[in-house]
């Protein structure tokens, strides 16, 4: 069948694309909009490397069709920094060496940002469970969890 036309907003910008109804939002972000920050680690919603928010809700972009993005507002890792100013989580991840290979990092950052927006003062357990859908094979999560919790503390202090 012919392709479907989709109008949506990504990181605040109005965008349009044509997609096959079988293509996922992740396929559309990466292949049609050249936003390759979200990664496909599994294609089954088990690894979280493709995490984005849709209308503020954290989702796996591999578990949503491109056509379902019609009229929505999508946010990806590419939209996390404001101009040249990195998000506090981005800064802390670099400072704490909370990434090794970096493939899971975009998804972890998007998910962690969603956590702190919902819960500015998460416990270690809450942080670990919130991020349970973001697989990291390199770090053992230790430095990731510390980076998220310490960023939360910094942000609480700053606000």
């Amino acid at each position, binding site marked *: *069948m012919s392709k479907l036309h989709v109008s949506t907003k990504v990181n605040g910008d109005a965008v349009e694309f044509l997609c096959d109804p079988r293509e996922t939002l992740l396929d559309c972000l990466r292949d049609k909009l050249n936003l390759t920050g979200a990664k496909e680690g599994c294609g089954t919603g088990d690894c979280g490397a493709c995490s984005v928010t849709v209308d503020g809700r954290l989702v796996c972009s591999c578990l949503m069709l491109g056509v379902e993005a019609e009229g929505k507002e999508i946010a990806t890792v590419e939209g996390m920094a404001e101009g040249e100013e990195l998000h506090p989580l981005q800064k802390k991840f670099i400072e704490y060496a909370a990434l090794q290979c970096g493939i899971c990092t975009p998804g972890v950052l998007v998910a962690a940002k969603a956590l702190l927006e919902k819960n500015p003062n998460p416990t270690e357990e809450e942080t670990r469970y919130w991020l349970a859908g973001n697989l990291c094979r390199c770090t053992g999560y230790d430095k990731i969890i510390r980076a998220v919790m310490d960023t939360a503390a910094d942000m609480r202090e700053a606000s």
Partner: protein
Amino acid sequence: MNYHSPASFAEASALAAASTGVTRFLAGGTDVLVQLRSDLVTPDLLIDIKKIDGVSKITRTDEGGWTLGVAVTGAEMSEHGELGRDWPGIVEAMDLIGSTQVQGRATLTGNLCNGSPAADSVPAMIAAGVTLTVTGPDGDRVVAVEDIPTGPGRTSLAKGEVISAVNIPPRGDNAGDAYLRFIPRTEMDIAVVGCGVSLRLEGDKIIEARVSLGAVAPTVLLVEDCAAAIVGTTLDEAALEALAAAASAACNPIDDKRGTIAFRTDVAGVLAKRAAKIAYARAKGENA
């Protein structure tokens, strides 16, 4: 694959009834997209029901129960304080499914219609006595949750039928529910065994109970012997042992990559005891 997003359930039902190939309804999509991506099921027709008015609403009924739209996500259920105070077991069962990300999309009806005997929300719904409104070519009918799954991946829904609402009964006084599952990790797994319990007390005595087991048979089971083992008791040690024995006896599981027959049979009893204790404490108004 054709994609449609009808504006009403009647239209959705008509589309499905007229389709000649494989039809799937798309709510949260957390199962449909996985099957699509792995070439397991590529529907000829995909009907997205999320543009139908009211599908994302959680509404208190006049009788004190709840009506949930079929696109209400797990995250929306968890964030709804009052629903969770009435039916913590259902909300927790839904919340156990997948990650935070999956919670942003997954729905009760999707979990049910996927037809997995290991679906977490299903034992909790069955224990709670949840019913569904089904819209078909001949209009609406109301069906109990336990009557929907007929086997792994199969449901009793006829061609052209689509679930249009989830009806949760009024909780009433001195009652509580709970759901527990066993998984090898702390998150992200499919239940190896699941158990939902809902019960009502008079004083310390259980006067009503429904116990449901998941992942121990081709479909989720409503186990009357389990209920019988605890009704009329104060959930003392003997009642708990009888409950565990009834739960294990009801199991008809398989050996598979997620667990063995012996393991599932044993752990069904363990979880039944643990879930019953939580439901009992909740019915007494204790924190659990």
